[in-house]
Each structure stands twice: as C-alpha cells, then as structure tokens.
C-alpha cells in the first residue's frame, strides 16, 4: 500500500473511529460498569453489587412513573407533531387554488417563516415563557379564559393539576417542533416531481387523495427519520420538563427519566443507581428506534426496495 494512502485512511477513518470509540462507546461501557456498583460519585471506593440497582429501579414507583411518562410522550408527541407538520406542509405546497397548476396557499412563504420562529428560540426560553402563560393567577391563558366569562378558570393551575399538566407540557413541546418539521416536509415535497400532482389532478384526484397517495408515500423516508428524531427527543424531554415543572409536576405526572437520573446522581449522590437509569434509558431508545424502523419496513407494501 502506498504510504499516502495509509495516511489518508488514518485521517479519514482512524481518527473519527478513535473519537467515536473514546468518546461514545467507551463511556457507554463505563456507565454500564458503574451501574453494577454502589458508587456514590465522590470517592474512588465502591462495591460491585451486581444487578441490585436494576432490581431497585424495577421496584421504584417514582422511576416507573417516569418511564410511563416517557412512553406517553414517545407515543403522542411524534404522532401529533408529524401529523400537524404534514398537514401544514401540504397546505403550503399543494393546498392552493384547485384550478391551474398545483401550488400552495398564497403567501405560503410568509407562513413558512412564521411557523419556523419557535424553533429558533432556545428550548429553555420556550419552556419558561409558556410556564408564565399558564400561571394560575397572572397567566395569559387564564386571563383570556376568565375575560370571556369562564370564571372557573380563575387561578386554575394548568401545570399544577395532575389531569392537565402532561397534556399542557406536550402542547408546549409540539408547539416548539411543528414549524421545523413542517419546513423539513416542505423541502421533501418540493422534491416530488410536479408532473405527478398535475397528472393526479387531471385524473380527478382531490387534495386529500393526493396527500395520501402521492405525498405521504413519496416522503416516507423523511417521515421515518422525523419520527425517530422526535421519539429520541421525547424519551429525553429534559429541558422542557425542567422549565415547565422542575419538580416533576403534580403527583409526578410530568416527571421524565432524565430528571430522576439527574436528581439521583447530583442530589442523592447515588451515581451507581443513576448509571443504571442511564442504561435503561439507552436501551429504551434503541428499542424505540428498532421498533419504528421495523414498523416502517412492514408497512412498505408492494413498493420494492
């Protein structure tokens, strides 16, 4: 092999691989190692206690609650966000006048910019602003509701009532993400040859029909990627939940795994247990990604690949 080639390979493959192994794979293995110990995090001493931490987690009501909350998030957030984003993207690209060439609503570029706005604001700011809006006494939401005569909403704690805290938190997350995925889908839809839509229209297809028989099948790869990204995010959701309800919400109704993990590691000094939580979270994330990929593969239908 020519020396130049070895150098090239080392730089292009060796370096990234070394980084990947050192900064990604190795910490994973380490975390798993610590999850088998009772390490307190502040000294070099610990005992290996086998799978005790996992047993503790299994029996821990609070952690189980957090897992359930994460699963709720991962079921609802991607589904609603992608449905909304797809609907909006369709409006902006093929939802326009039903005569002439297929096009989006008028002023669609304006709508596109406006709905992208939330994504440009840092997540923590979004969380804090919405927390203010939902404030029971001085919040915009209750102010608006009471001013139209719904006096039952005077000091109603949206984020402090176990019935509404989770839906409200989901709403905030979805609000923040819809714009971005809409823009993503717009770009994908623009990549579909316009002739397909024109042909469909000549054949008499309406907008709904076009959406389901042309748009969705043509951009299913984008949808799948979006679904996985959003799912991984929903399994975390740390920033929003921390901003909206740092304590995990009423009756722990918005508590998510990373919050429990953080609390366990840095407030209770149980780094071993926290590592076990990290491992559970990683496994759940992997499981989710595999599930989504499988689901998309199974529903591919006759489309050969």
């Amino acid at each position, binding site marked *: 092999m020519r020396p130049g080639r070895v150098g090239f390979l080392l730089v292009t*493959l060796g370096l990234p691989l070394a980084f990947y192994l*050192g900064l990604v794979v190795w910490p994973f293995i380490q975390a798993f190692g610590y999850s088998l110990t009772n390490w307190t995090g502040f000294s*070099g001493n610990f005992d290996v206690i086998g799978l005790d931490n996992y047993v503790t987690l299994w029996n821990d009501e609070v952690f189980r609650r957090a897992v359930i909350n994460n699963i709720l998030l991962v079921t609802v957030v991607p589904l609603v966000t992608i449905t909304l984003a797809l609907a909006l993207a369709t409006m902006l690209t093929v939802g326009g006048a039903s005569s002439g060439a297929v096009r989006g609503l008028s002023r669609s570029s304006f709508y596109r910019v406006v709905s992208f706005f939330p994504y440009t604001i840092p997540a923590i700011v979004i969380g804090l602003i919405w927390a203010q809006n939902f404030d*029971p006494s001085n919040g915009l939401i209750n102010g608006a509701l009471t001013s139209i005569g719904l006096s039952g909403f005077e*000091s109603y*704690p949206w984020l*402090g009532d176990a019935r509404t805290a989770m839906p409200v938190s989901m709403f905030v997350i979805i609000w923040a993400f819809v714009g971005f995925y809409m823009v993503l889908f717009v770009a994908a839809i623009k990549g579909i040859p316009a002739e397909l839509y024109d042909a469909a229209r000549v054949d008499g297809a309406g907008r709904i029909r076009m959406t389901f028989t042309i748009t969705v099948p043509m951009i299913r790869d984008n949808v799948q990627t979006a679904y996985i990204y959003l799912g991984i995010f929903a399994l975390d959701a740390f920033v929003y939940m921390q901003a909206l309800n740092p304590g995990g919400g009423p009756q722990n109704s918005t508590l998510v795994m990373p919050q429990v993990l953080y609390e366990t590691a840095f407030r209770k000094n149980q780094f071993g247990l926290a590592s076990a939580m990290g491992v559970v979270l990683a496994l759940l994330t992997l499981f989710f990604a595999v599930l989504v990929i499988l689901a998309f593969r199974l529903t591919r239908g006759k489309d050969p690949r």
Partner: protein
Amino acid sequence: MTDSRSMPNRRNVLRLAFAAGVGLSASSALTSCATSGGDEDTGGKATGGGAKADAKNPFGIKDGATGTSVIFNGGWGIDYVTFAAKMFEKTHGGKFEVKPSTQISQQLQPRFVGKNPPDLIDNSGANKIGLNAIVDQLEDLNDVLDANNLEGKPIKDTLYPGAKSPGTIDGKLIAINYVQTVFAIWYSASLFQENDWTPPKTWDEAYELGGKAKSKGKFLFLWGKEAATYYQTLVIGSAIKEGGDDVRLALENLDKDGWSHPAVQGAIKGLEKIIKAGYMKPGGAGTQFTQAQAQWSRSQEALLYPSGSWIENEMKKQTKSGFKMTGAPEMTETGSSKMPLTALHAAADEAFIVPSDGKNPASAKEVLRIMLSKEAAANFAKTKLTPTIVKDTVPTDGFGSTALQSQTKLLEDAGKDVFTFNFVNLYGTNQDQLVPWNSFLSGKIDAAGLTKSLQAISDKVRNDSSVKKAKVT
C-alpha cells in the same frame, strides 16, 4: 501495478482500527479510568501549614502560604470570602484564590474523585453536594472553633447557640455554616397594625385569623410549587416546639412512625383545617414560588408566609413599600407546648467545608478563622443585611431593616431554645417530599394521605442499605 491482494480492503482496515481502538481504551481504562485515581503519595504535599503553631497562628501558617477555594456565587456573592482572603494574604504574604461557581456538585465531583479538590468550598445553592456522600473525605473543623479569633477570644464563645449542629455528623464537625438563618412566619407589621391583627400563636388562632382575612378578601397563606415544603418546615418546627426533642429525634432518625407522632399530626391537622376552609390561596401547585411570594409581598393577597430569613433579600425588589416585613415565631398546637413559644428554628446556612485531600487544608482553616473574626463577620452583616453565626454584629436598628431587627429579636427571645433538623438536606429528599406537599396544599390529599406519603419517603431512605445514615442524638 501492485498486486491487488496485498492491498488492505476498507473492511479489514476498519476491523483492525476497531480492534486497536477497543484494546487502547481497555488498557487506558486500567490506568486512567475515572475512579482509579490511586492512593499514591504525592510526595512533598504542601499543607499551607508547617510553621510553629501558637495562639496567634493556630494552624501554623508559613509566610507565603497559598490556597484555593470554590465559592457558591448565589445570593451572597463571593466578595465576603475575597475580603477574608485579602486579610489572609496581608498577614501571611501568600496568595489565596477565590473562584465563583454555581454548579458546585457537577464541577467538583470529578475533582473529589481525582483527589485534587480545592482547599475550601462553600457548598451551597441548588447544586450543592449531599454531604453524607463525602463525610469521610472532609476535615474535622472543631479545631477552627477551638482556636482564638483575631481579637483573641475563643471562636466557639462568640457564636449563636446551635451554630455547630447543622454541620455536625456523628460528632464530627464537617461544615461550618456561616450565615445565620431563622425560620419564622413573616408578615407585614404595617398591614397588621392597620387591621388590628396579631400574628397567631396557635394553629387555632391562625384559623381564626384566616376568617378575618377572608372578610377582607385576602387569604391566610399562599405557596409556590417549588417551595411547597416550606410548609413542611413550618409543620416540623411547630411539632418540635409542641412535643420537644422526641419529635426531632424521631424524624431525624427516620423512625418507622415518626410522622405519626401526635405533635406532628397536630400541626398537620391544624394546617389541614386551614386548607379545607379555603384560607390557602388556590393554584399554588402551578405557580412559580417567586411569583407566589410576590403575591404575598407586593399585592398582599395573603397575610402570612413561612420562610427563612433570606426572604427579605430574595423579595427586595418585589416588596410593597412600607411593608415592614417582620417575623413571628412558628405557632404551636396548644399554647402549652414542651418548648416555649419563643423557641426558634434557627440554623446556620452556607456550609464551608475543607476536603482532606486538598493541598492546603491549614490555609483553608485559617481563612475560616478570619471569616469568623468580628471584623469580617461585621462586614458581612453590614453589606448583606444578614447576620453570620458570629453574635453581636448587627446594631439594634438592623441597618434600617425591620426584618433584620425582628431576626435579632427572635434570636434574643429564644435564648438557648434554638433547634434545627437536618434529615431533609442530608438525604436529599426535598424533591420527593414536594410531591405530596403540593397535593396536600391543593386539597387533593388529606392529612392521612400526606402522612402516609411522607412516611413512605422516610422508610425508603431507612431501608436503602446503600444510603449512609447519620445517627442523631
């Protein structure tokens, strides 16, 4: 042309690199893994000390001695430590570094593991280290209190009663808590005067006052979601005054039925009656605590607020002018309690710790000794409008602050009857306790439900063999 078979193909290169990578990280793991910082002696370990110790220089600080510190940069800032560090440098000619931080636990965790922590740490703020994890790695600071201060008096004779207890675990003084805090029920003296009200001495009086407040369109209490456990602090303080030391020990040692103690139940039921009557402003479980506090101090929607004496400083910008913030002692159940009504839940705050693995523990102790001198303590009281654990540094006019005046008076009235409790901080259970407290204050669960949840939290810690317990006597 080279023979193509001698060319490594991409897959083989990857495989090789992968194997090399795994081997590399595995071998480096043995030498530099995060927790393998061995016990090898660093050789000539500086101590900051070394010179001959005497009454004027109890830790034997050499000329040119150095030291480092990480100080929580919160409500009090770091300038009061810099003040002491300057005095250290002037006396000993060395350099004592003062670095601010708001992430004490996250920043110092790797340094503790790596055995190179700073010499002095102000362990405070939301991200403080749970001290029971590092008890064995901290210096016993009893020798600082035994030493003479700069004015030549033994430091232990200059402190408020009870100053030592929050930093003592199993007889070892692991932390000197510098700032004196009293827990009380705060109200506006001017508002009370206008309406001819008096602060309640018992839970029944509080209930009656709630009725009077209601007729004025006000609530008795309010709360914010992150601070729901301020009412837990009130309930425990009230119960300890009612039932005496038994109550404190039962809770501190996580007894099986600690929360069922009659005195604790009396206080919880007293509060329950107030909540059921609608004297607690609704919606607190969804309100940020500073917002809730502003509803008390600015719009005066509620009369009373249980809190520590930091409340004046915290709400300074959001307090109605002429509010005359004043503290009243926490009420008891019957008025014929084991401790007098003037007994006070007062605790020192801002824990200064000295890690044994630091390079110059003696320098750190010397800086603490300087901070506990009259000059440095008076400087703190004057600039922060809050007393330190050093007595008699606040003039009677409280630098013009009614809250500070009342704090001094509360401490004087209490005399020796000062108590505190530690188990919430020690075991880091506040977060878990917030959940039932928010439900209870919202009226979603009753006294029995609250008791059950709180007991479950104590039981969980007691039964967890991985958590180190401190025996309190």
